[in-house]
């Protein structure tokens, strides 16, 4: 999302992330990735995450399901993507198409303000991201090769996941640029 933020504002949309993490953890995430948009905190999930249908009720950690919404200037939800689990991430092209359909003029979005930044205990250091995504890629490739017999759904699912991981790997130089 971050590397293509300009495409969102060009189509009249401002981007905001939401998580159940604390304000301080979100500030650390914005800082780590030099995000051009804020991450908002809904720690009890009762303000936005659950009412909008994104609470993960199967996970005891009180987290959100991944996904995305596009809300029109009239306050209506005009596009919705709900991930099955944390391995599902919104595809930027799908969101951009949903936004383009609204026919809005370009807008602007100021860089996010952050306060005290304290990463969570489990937060991965920026330096680990490349290895993390490469590990995910090659493990998925190996599992995919082992289980070719599992049919088209498995093949399509792993292909989609690999495409997502590749997008994240490709995005890392952009993160490096923003952090510089």
């Amino acid at each position: 999302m971050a590397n293509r933020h300009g495409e969102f504002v060009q189509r009249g949309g401002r981007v905001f992330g939401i998580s159940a993490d604390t304000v301080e953890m979100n500030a650390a995430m914005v800082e780590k990735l030099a995000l051009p948009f804020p991450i908002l905190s809904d720690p009890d999930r009762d303000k936005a995450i659950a009412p909008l249908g994104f609470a993960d009720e199967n996970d005891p950690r009180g987290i959100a399901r991944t996904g995305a919404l596009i809300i029109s200037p009239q306050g209506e939800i005009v596009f919705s993507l709900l991930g099955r689990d944390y391995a599902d991430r919104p595809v930027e092209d799908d969101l951009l198409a949903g936004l383009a359909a609204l026919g809005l003029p370009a807008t602007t979005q100021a860089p996010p303000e952050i306060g005290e930044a304290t990463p969570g205990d489990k937060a991965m250091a920026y330096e680990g991201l490349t290895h993390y995504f490469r590990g995910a890629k090659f493990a998925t490739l190996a599992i995919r090769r082992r289980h070719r017999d599992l049919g088209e759904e498995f093949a399509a699912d792993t292909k989609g996941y690999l495409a997502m991981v590749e997008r994240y790997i490709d995005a890392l130089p952009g993160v490096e640029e923003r952090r510089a």
Partner: protein
Amino acid sequence: MAIDFTVTDAAGKPWTLSDHLDAAVVITFHRGDF
């Protein structure tokens, strides 16, 4: 029906959806526990 909600931004300030609807709002949901 128009929706609205208030959460908290990364500077600790309240963030209300209806304050930001002079444009479309794209919200991405993140797993959390990072």
